[in-house]
């Protein structure tokens, strides 16, 4: 069974503009799936629909066979979402926020302590977890959002521009974590503008333009010996 299956997904805004038009794609266990496109192409809208934040007009989105529309809670239990600009509760300390997320996912005390320590140390933020989130830099907030996404060991991790604001070491660690997750049978679906990262990291990629999926498949199929950047420039300029 696919981890994520998007079938004929269409999103029309109130003013009649199509943000996403008949998009279909499949993410299998072990995939690191890159989702690329211009600003305003429909990437974030699609991602927000996948994680159950945004309603959509037509089509179906399934996570491990469960419909996001019909059974959103079951889908969200196995999904993690990291938005491009995480709006965390600024008046909570980092540890209070992580405990809140751990409580929501009913993570045992032992597991949460282990995981917070592990990822906190990896991202070198453990020592700052006692401070209010409002005092954090953008990158630190991003790190807390990433740890909160990893705390329940999701089957599907959906990220919108996850590398923005991260320092080089944190970027490296996040990439390692993505590989590690996929080796354990989870899947990662993320949007990015950094094509070099996508090319090196992803085994599958989809290109979206003006709400339509214009290319998708494995990295090898898509690039066919060329760089992802030149393929992208070619298809979006057509």
């Amino acid at each position, binding site marked *: 069974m696919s981890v994520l299956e998007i079938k004929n997904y269409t999103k029309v805004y109130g003013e009649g503009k199509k943000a996403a038009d008949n998009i279909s794609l499949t993410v299998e266990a072990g995939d690191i799936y890159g989702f690329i496109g211009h600003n305003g192409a429909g990437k974030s809208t699609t991602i927000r629909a996948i994680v159950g934040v945004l309603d959509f007009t037509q089509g179906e989105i399934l996570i491990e066979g469960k419909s996001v529309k019909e059974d959103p809670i079951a889908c969200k239990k196995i999904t993690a979402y990291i938005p491009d600009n995480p709006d965390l509760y600024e008046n909570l300390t980092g540890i209070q926020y992580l405990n*809140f997320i751990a409580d929501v996912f009913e993570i045992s005390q032992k597991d949460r302590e282990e995981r917070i320590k592990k990822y906190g140390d990896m991202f070198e933020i453990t020592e700052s977890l*006692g401070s*209010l989130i409002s005092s954090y830099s953008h990158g630190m907030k991003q790190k807390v959002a990433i740890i909160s996404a990893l705390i329940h060991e999701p089957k599907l991790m959906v990220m919108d521009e996850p590398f923005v604001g991260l320092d080089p070491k944190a970027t490296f660690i996040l990439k390692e974590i993505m590989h590690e997750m996929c080796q354990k049978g989870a899947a990662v679906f993320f949007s990015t503008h950094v094509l070099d990262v996508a090319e090196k990291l992803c085994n599958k990629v989809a290109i979206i333009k003006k709400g339509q999926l214009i290319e998708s498949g494995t990295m090898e199929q898509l690039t066919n010996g060329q760089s992802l950047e030149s393929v992208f420039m070619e298809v979006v300029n057509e």
Partner: protein
Amino acid sequence: MNKKSMLLLKTLLRSTSRINQIKYVKDPKIRGKAIGGMIGLFVLYLMIVVYSFMMCVGYGQLGLTDSIPIICASIISMLAFVFTFFKTNGYLFAFKEYDMLMSLPFSAKTIAADKFLYMYVASMPWYLSVSVAMMIGYGIYAGANPLVYPVWLVLTFVLPIIPMLVASFIGFLIAKVSAGFRHKNIIQTVLIFVFVIFCFSLQYIIEALVKSDETKVILENVSGSIEDIGSVYLPIAWFADGIRSFDVAGILLLIGVSLVLFELVFMIVGKYYRQINSALKSHGADKAYKMTAQKTHSVVNAIAFKEFKRMTGSQAYLVNAGLGEVLAFLLGAIALFVKFEKIISVVTKGAPIDASIVFPAIPLIVYFCIGMVATTACSPSLEGKNYWIMQSLPIEQKTIYRGKMLYNMYLTVPFAVFATVCLSFSARVPIVNAIIYLAEIIALCAFSTTWGCVCGIKHMRLDWENEIEVVKQGAAVAIYLFPNMLVCMGLVVLVVFLGMRMDANLVSLAITAIAGLLAALCYGWVMKLSRR
């Protein structure tokens, strides 16, 4: 209420309370501000306690002790309805952390219901301030059975639920209707204003409808008798009967109806929650713009224009800050068609008052509407995360605040002048008086603007989670609003009183001079604060 709902509610409360700041922030300035804010709120609660208790003393002295529970229930119900109605759209829909919460395994119903419960808990100190004071007053004058106190307290926690649910549901209906339109924000704002004006005029509509009706006598009794308020809005009667005669049926009805209504409202809201938020929070950027000739503005005007766009871009801000202007405009427009004497007769319910004694109060009546909220009281805090934009620009802080103050003058003066001119015209006051009234209202607008700015800077709060926190319930707005409105009401009485004993124009000129002087002092204060 399940475990997850409790967890979310606890987190929402923790994330907006100042306790975390006091506990975890080491910067003494921030801690001091947080403590100061809490003390300020406590003082406001105390003021309400004193005011409510004094009201009870009045009723007790008049031998109307039995009416106290009804008065208490009426005040709490009205406060609950009004507070919630103005907050609903900011709290329930299109709030900042919507994406984060909706991506977690919470049902839409849980999130919506918890947002409601958050409003309920956050407003409870206001209701308790009224209720506890009135409970003590009632206890003293009625020599009440000790059982009255626990029953009163328990019912105080239940009483606001129904009006809050009704207000939330109306807010939901407005959001649902506007979600279907292209210009959602404008439609939502217009619908809210229409509803507010409808509520304001409801009493007069009922009276007008029954003028030639046989039921006139019955309804006249309804509006005239405190006791009969309970027959118009049953939960008030259930509350009062529960306290006065320990009517178990009333108590159970109040609790039962509140719980059933809660479930029902959030079953419906939860069903459409994602759909409405999706519509309100997602927009496609238009790609049809053609570069045209651009205009230049002075720095201060550019800031004022930015303030205008900030206000019109936020439905919560627009409704709260624009309500006074809308009311002033309506007051002026009505005055064009209805004689001043008639307006006074309607407002005073036909009391035998010579309308001419109210003439000197015209600017103050207009100011009561206009001065309700000054944009300068909330706009410094509303910069929020965008504060860096202004801070990084090569302009002095005092220029920023001059721009903010200029915008409030642009917003208030035209409406204030329109309403004052219309009321003066309707009252057929001599031209000299009208000119004095105009000078007075402009001085009052200047005072409102500068005093609002002082409050806004002194109690600036940039780390809000929801803009309602600073627009509606921020310390700056509360400190600006309450004394301002109380003084305004007091001045109306004083002006009428003095106007009968001396030249009313002299009184108006004196108020103009005092307001102008206070405005100048506050302006100086703003300049001083902005140098820090």
